């Protein structure tokens, strides 16, 4: 009887310093687009994403 294939673990490929910075900034790595070799997330990618988030927050008017 056919066996259901084990899904490979959902892992986000990120460089060590990117993992660390994401933890420091409280960033969800699954949201970050990687630009390193093979699409690996670099520390630069995390920084860029953090800037974007900040930008978005600044745009969204704060509830009074």
């Amino acid at each position, binding site marked *: 009887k056919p066996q259901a294939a084990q899904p490979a*673990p959902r892992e986000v490929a990120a460089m060590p310093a990117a993992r660390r910075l994401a933890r420091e900034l409280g960033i969800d790595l699954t949201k970050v687009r990687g630009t390193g*070799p093979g699409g690996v997330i670099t520390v630069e990618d995390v920084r860029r994403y953090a800037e974007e988030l900040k930008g978005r927050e600044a745009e969204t008017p704060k509830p009074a």
Partner: protein
Amino acid sequence: MRLVVVGGGPAGYVAAIRASQLGIKVTLIEAEHLGGECTNYACIPSKALLHAAEVYRKAASAPWLAGSLSFRWGEAVRWKDGVVERLRRGIEFLLKSAGVEVVHGVAKPGPGKSVEVNGRRFEYDYLLLATGSEPVDLKELPRGGRVLGTREVFGLENAPASVAIIGGGAAGVEAASLFSMLGSEVHLVEVMDRLLPGLDADVSRQVERALAGRGVKVYTSSRVVGAGGADGALELRLSTPGGEKRVEVEIAVVAVGRRPRLGPFAALGLELDSRGAVKTDSSMRTSIPWVYAAGDVTGPPYYAHKAYAQAKAAVENMAGLKSAYEPRAVPAVIFSDPEVVSVGLTEEEAAKRGYRPKAARVPLSALGRAVATDSSEGFAKLVYDGESRVVLGVHMVGRGVSELAGEAAALVEFYATVDDLALVVHPHPTLSELFVELAEAALGRPTHVARL
């Protein structure tokens, strides 16, 4: 902020230095010697003596050298003592340069947030336990007399003519290599069904074959059931799959494992795991928020480089940084002859975690460097995920492979794929060319291994 570090081994001294760099005022308390087990009685003495023995083995077997050569154990031990002394002083100097206060004595918990040493009291905001580990004893073979622990091996007056080593883990295999290189009769006893039980099974087999090929008698699935003997020798009774065996040796070395050592700090009532190791989160914080732990006291694996990494994470957290100890790969290196490297996942481990592991294998004999340095026995194996092609683990056995473990760890940490790896130009002729061959083998197109 005041930090007290208990223990001056790899965990303790590195924590103290890093904490100082972060502006924390640090007192480090050490009962014995700075450098701990590692520098004084374990990593360094063993590697120094293995180096000495290797120089002998290579020279003695070189067809291009003429003359007589003998190994002087006493001189080797003296040279090793000099190495240890130099490194211990180095650590002393590093701590001093960093402005760490070093106190000698046995620490125990004091009232409130304090520790006491020789009647003096040291208050702290944070406490780091870096108290290390201690050897596990064998009740059938208590240490004393002709029965040694690993510490005593490196201070022996003479190399033994015959030795039984109980425990086929890293320390046991290294000791077996050492004495067999020097020509001793060596018996190696392991309770599990293979040497180095935690590692890749093919690696185990190759190490066993290599040791046996040099005359080491390896007993797997075996244990010591009794000991006796007159004053001239020691007789061990072994229970083996082939029935009971008697072995007469000059000395026995017990290397059956280590366990975390809390000593007086057991009184703190920290949460421990089933093996007695201090439980921590990934910031190395224990169940008491101002108490951190690092190194062997947190349980296996027992490596100095694990201690370093945990120590840094611990004190960085005290300083408010969000460090964590959560490496993808903590390399295991065994400096036996042949050397062993194991980094990341084995195929079985990878399958358990839900990967679809595949493995590529390359013999050392495929490499010019290995042949040109008389080191062509052994192999390397790369474990990668069949879908993403990400490198998950690297396992190697062979002379000289120990320096390749760092690159293996980097590949795993960087989520390198075999495609990436195949494009990294590695210099010829070096053993590091293994990485290119492994990647190409994974891609089905090795250039230095025949596909038959």
